[in-house]
């Protein structure tokens, strides 16, 4: 009788073994900032499934409206990978390791736009005196830092603006300008192009009056020195996404062409610009 009980327990444990193995699988959390249109839950679920099938880890996306929140979560190891902007990457470059950089229009770069409501009289930064300007985020290169540099360049200090505010994301910048809550807005060019391509009303009701030079595209990063096999598998999967149809479909939804390993030197122009802007918060 005792022998039978032991055999029964042993056989039960053998049957349960695969589930236990699966439960022990690492859960990879990827923090998303508003550098992409991250409020499309169905797309993120598809992308997570795609990655899970290739990296042997449970994948989940953690979307936050502020860059700082995602950065804090990364430093507190609440997320394993973060899709940040180039500006916070420069700020914390010593602690961060570049995992992959998207290719947009076949280049790992993007631009910052100054947008206005359709039929507005604003034609450039010089016209913003006494106007209301919307920023995307305090840690956004295209949505704040570039604007600070350009305002300084045309001699307009923040006091000369009637008002400026952070709209908690690039999409909200477009919506603020479209609704006339702001007279103009600083926005990620890739995101505005994507919104326009998807015929979002906020993009259709606004127009670009100024485009910046190219900057390094917001990279996916992880904490330096804490890379695991899952990180390496994720990197390989991202770099190979453009090779299969499922990956191509996901990339098309993201309005991207693929991912590359990335070159930190591409972000030096952001560093130079940040050094010239007061209160840029550049610490490294």
């Amino acid at each position, binding site marked *: 009788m005792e022998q039978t009980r032991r055999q029964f327990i042993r056989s039960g444990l053998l049957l349960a073994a695969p589930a236990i193995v699966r439960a022990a699988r690492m859960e990879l959390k990827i923090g998303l900032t508003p550098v992409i249109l991250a409020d499309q839950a169905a797309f993120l679920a598809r992308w997570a499934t795609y990655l899970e099938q290739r990296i042997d880890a449970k994948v989940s996306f953690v979307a936050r409206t502020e860059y700082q929140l995602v950065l804090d979560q990364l430093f507190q190891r609440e997320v394993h990978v973060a899709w940040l902007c180039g500006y916070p990457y420069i700020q914390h470059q010593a602690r961060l390791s570049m995992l992959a950089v998207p290719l947009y229009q076949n280049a790992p770069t993007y631009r910052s736009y100054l947008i206005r409501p359709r039929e507005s009289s604003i034609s450039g930064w010089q016209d913003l005196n006494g106007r*209301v300007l*919307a920023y995307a985020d305090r840690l956004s290169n295209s949505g704040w830092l570039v604007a600070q540099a350009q305002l300084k360049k045309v001699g307009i200090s923040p006091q000369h603006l*009637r*008002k400026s*505010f*952070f709209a*908690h994301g690039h999409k909200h910048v477009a919506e*603020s300008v479209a*609704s006339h*809550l702001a007279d103009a807005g600083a926005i990620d060019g890739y995101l505005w192009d994507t919104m326009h391509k998807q015929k979002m009303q906020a993009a259709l009701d606004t127009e670009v009056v100024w485009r910046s030079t190219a900057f390094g595209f917001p990279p996916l990063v992880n904490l330096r020195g804490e890379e695991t096999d899952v990180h390496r598998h994720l990197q390989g999967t991202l770099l190979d996404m453009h090779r299969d149809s499922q990956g191509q479909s996901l990339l098309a939804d993201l309005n991207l062409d693929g991912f590359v390993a990335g070159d930190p030197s591409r972000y030096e122009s952001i560093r130079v610009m940040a050094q010239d802007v007061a209160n840029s918060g550049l610490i490294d």
Partner: protein
Amino acid sequence: MLTRLPYRLQIPLGLSMAVVITALLVSAVTARHSAQLARAQIMSTVDRTEFLIAAQAPPLLAADDVWGGYTLMKATAALLPGAQEGLSRSAILDNTGKVLAASDPVRLKTATELLNEPSRESYMRDESSLQNSHQRFHDDGNLVIVNPLRSEDGQVLGFSYIEVDAPSFAIDWLELVYPTLIGVGMAVALLVPAGWWMGKRMTRPVARIASVIAQIGSNGADKLEEGIPVTRDPELARIGSAVRELVRETRIRKKVEQRAYSAERLAAIGRMTAAVAHEINNPLGGLLNVVKTLSIHGHRDETRASSLALLERGLQQIQSTVNALLPQARGEQRPLTVIDLDDIILLARTSAGSQSLEIHATTDIESALRVPADPVRQVMLNLLSNALKAVDDRGVLQATLQADEREVRFLVSNSGTSMSEKVLERILTAESGTDPRGFGLWVCREIAIRYDGGFRVVDDAQNMTQLLFWIPNVERYETPLAD
């Protein structure tokens, strides 16, 4: 207008009008009540919206979060009346009265001073104004509500601002009247056929009574009485009873008229007979003398022959006079002939007696005479008798009988005093009976009416009286009324 319509139209129209008027009155009262209710609902909604803003705006004000304020205003302003039409808007203001964020940034621009505008400066007139809620209707009818937003320790962080345009308070008459119109339409759809049926049912006895009244004087009295409806309605019963009485009286009056007509005929015959008797009596005296002469000297051939010739002429005169009188007394049912006129002229001349009158008769007959002889002879006799009375000894009478396919006319002219239509009418309608001409002429007119003809004075006659009688030239005999 409405009263000229028959009852079967008056009743449904009246009912429909009553419904419409009632609906209008109810709508007016309801509209007033709805307006008050709508205003109260708007104020209640505005209060709730203001409460939501007061609960959520302070942290946004503290963080100077324009986007957060905008999303809150968009969400709460959607609750306000007329928001979809752009008739209401809300905003969060900082403690200087500048717009932090508004639901409609085009009208309430970000970072503009709203409470310091001339039209709204009273809101921030002094320090105490900042502490109080303001709710007022401006001259343009717009409602503005400004409430201070406080921190937990009571410090004024800013203000909530709600503006509702006057059209939001306007009554939506179409929406209000629409159910009433449906109700009225249904009521009218029901009442028109029902009212038609009721009207028809109500007026059927009246219509039958009216039909009976219209036939009085033409149809048999017994049939008319059968046509009067028996009803339980007291008013209609009274009318029916009165009409029944009228029919009875008409029947009696007709009998009286018939008797009068017969009496007049007999009277005329009597007058004629007296004249004829007088006319016969004269030759009878001569004839008796001839008989006496014949008995004394009858043996002489010459005397006998001349006496017999005198006797023959005298008797022929008597025979023609009696022949002229006989049809008048018999009341024959046959068509009129020209000989009838000759008879009447002969009788008239006989009646004239010793008067030196000129009595002429002419005929103008284009079509066969179909009219009954008896009544026309009566008319001719009456008119000539009347003319004889109207002229003096040397007067002139002219009688003309005309006939064509359409009608028969008898015209009598006399050289007596001219008679106007008014005088004739007065004679015919005189009730006293003192005018000797009245009854004979009245009989002429009654016969004319009975046979669908006419009787009048010819106006264009100069210095003489001309009376014209005519009836349709059709065959028509009447059965004398039973006594």
